[in-house]
């Protein structure tokens, strides 16, 4: 088991964001979590990536208690969230070089050039990131999350701000990483992209993470229909 989160609860003040959430990720599995804005998807990804601590619950990553040994498990995670998690005063190359050195990666220069080429940022490798568009930053984030070849990818809205070609690149990359035996958790509110990328689907509504189906048990239209229905019920509450 790559990731096992048990009874994760998180409250901000009186508001419960996550209520005894449970999630498991096996190697070679892509878990797509669908939820509207404000559902707690980002909070969940940040908890799974050990960036914030849950109020209660257990988190196990690759057999290690991630809440007690966060420093040990963090290098095995590739994380994409809404923030760049990098220095905008630096260029993409400088950022990847810095983080690559922190991860103690071998053949770093070659890896940086390969990744920047793959995400389509090779020609902007030495431009300051402060002038980058949202889509370019998202491409950089994908490259940064892969620089250290992590075993578990946690992607919060990875398609956000991307054009069609870039979305296809992210989908291809997710399939590639999955074929390498990596586990992936991604959040989105786009049912079609969630379906194409995912192998298992969950809905995050009302602080509750509900298992829906495996990919071979459900069609994309049915997934969209069930999501809309659950979303309406959630909005009526």
């Amino acid at each position: 088991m790559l990731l096992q989160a048990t009874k994760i609860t998180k409250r901000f003040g009186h508001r419960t964001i996550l209520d005894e959430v449970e999630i498991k990720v096996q190697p070679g599995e892509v878990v797509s979590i669908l939820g509207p804005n404000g559902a707690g998807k980002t909070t969940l990804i940040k908890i799974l990536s050990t960036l914030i601590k849950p109020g209660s619950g257990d988190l196990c990553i690759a057999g290690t208690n991630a809440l007690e040994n966060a420093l040990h498990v963090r290098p095995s995670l590739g994380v994409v969230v809404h923030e760049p998690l990098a220095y905008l005063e630096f260029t993409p190359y400088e950022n990847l070089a810095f983080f690559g050195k922190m991860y103690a990666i071998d053949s770093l220069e070659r890896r940086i050039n390969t990744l920047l080429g793959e995400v389509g940022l090779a020609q902007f490798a030495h431009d300051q990131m402060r002038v980058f568009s949202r889509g370019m930053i998202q491409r950089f984030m994908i490259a940064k999350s892969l620089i250290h070849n992590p075993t578990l990818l946690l992607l919060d809205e990875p398609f956000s701000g991307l054009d069609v070609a870039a979305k296809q690149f992210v989908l291809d990359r997710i399939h590639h990483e999955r074929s390498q035996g990596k586990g992936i958790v991604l959040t989105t509110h786009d049912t079609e992209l969630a379906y194409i990328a995912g192998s298992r689907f969950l809905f995050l509504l009302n602080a509750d993470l509900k298992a829906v189906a495996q990919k071979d048990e459900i069609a994309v239209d049915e997934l969209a229909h069930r999501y809309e229905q659950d979303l309406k019920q959630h909005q009526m509450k």
Partner: protein
Amino acid sequence: MKTFRQIGWLVRKDVALFFRTKDTLVLIVVFSVLVVLIFGLAFGPVFPQEAEDRGKLAASVLWTAFAFAGIILLNRSFDVERASGALHGVRLTGVDPGNLYLSKVVSNLIILAVLEAMITPVALQFLDALDTLTFQTLAKLIGVLIVGAVGFCAVGVTISGISTSTHGKESLLSVILLPLIFPIIMAGAKCTVSLLTAEGLEGNFWISTLVIYGIVFLSSSYLLFEFVIED
């Protein structure tokens, strides 16, 4: 070995970012020069004839300039880390929070030491206190300023880390930091006065205070920095 390498990369990154943006550099240099100028114009052009009075004036000017420049520097130190979530990115590399703390102390110390190296001769010359100094006393003075800067950064990095994650960070930093760095400024100023007037440290009390305070804050913050940066 990995620890030292990581600290080295973090320090290089901090210093590179500092000189890349330049706005803080310009601000602290201009501010320090302005402090020297204001004191110089207020007390000059004829400065006190007594070496003791001149020494006290020079010590006041130097520590006022460094204290306020240091606060500006520390205030900006974590801004760049929090602005685009870069601190989360660094935490995800698995770096020990204690090492992250040490790297911040070292990088701020380097910048403050460069500032002190630029401002001290200018201030002493401007306040007519440079000619009376021997090379040995000047070396001791630099030593005291650097020990003071270590203590200042040891305290300041911790408080800056706390205050940047809260609202009203600039006022909070000043409010919390000033009482905590007061012993450093007091001990540093006393040592500086002693060096500029008696050309040596009179007794060990103030220099010991400076060193011990720095060590206590360095070691305690190294151990507790995890709680400063964890959300």
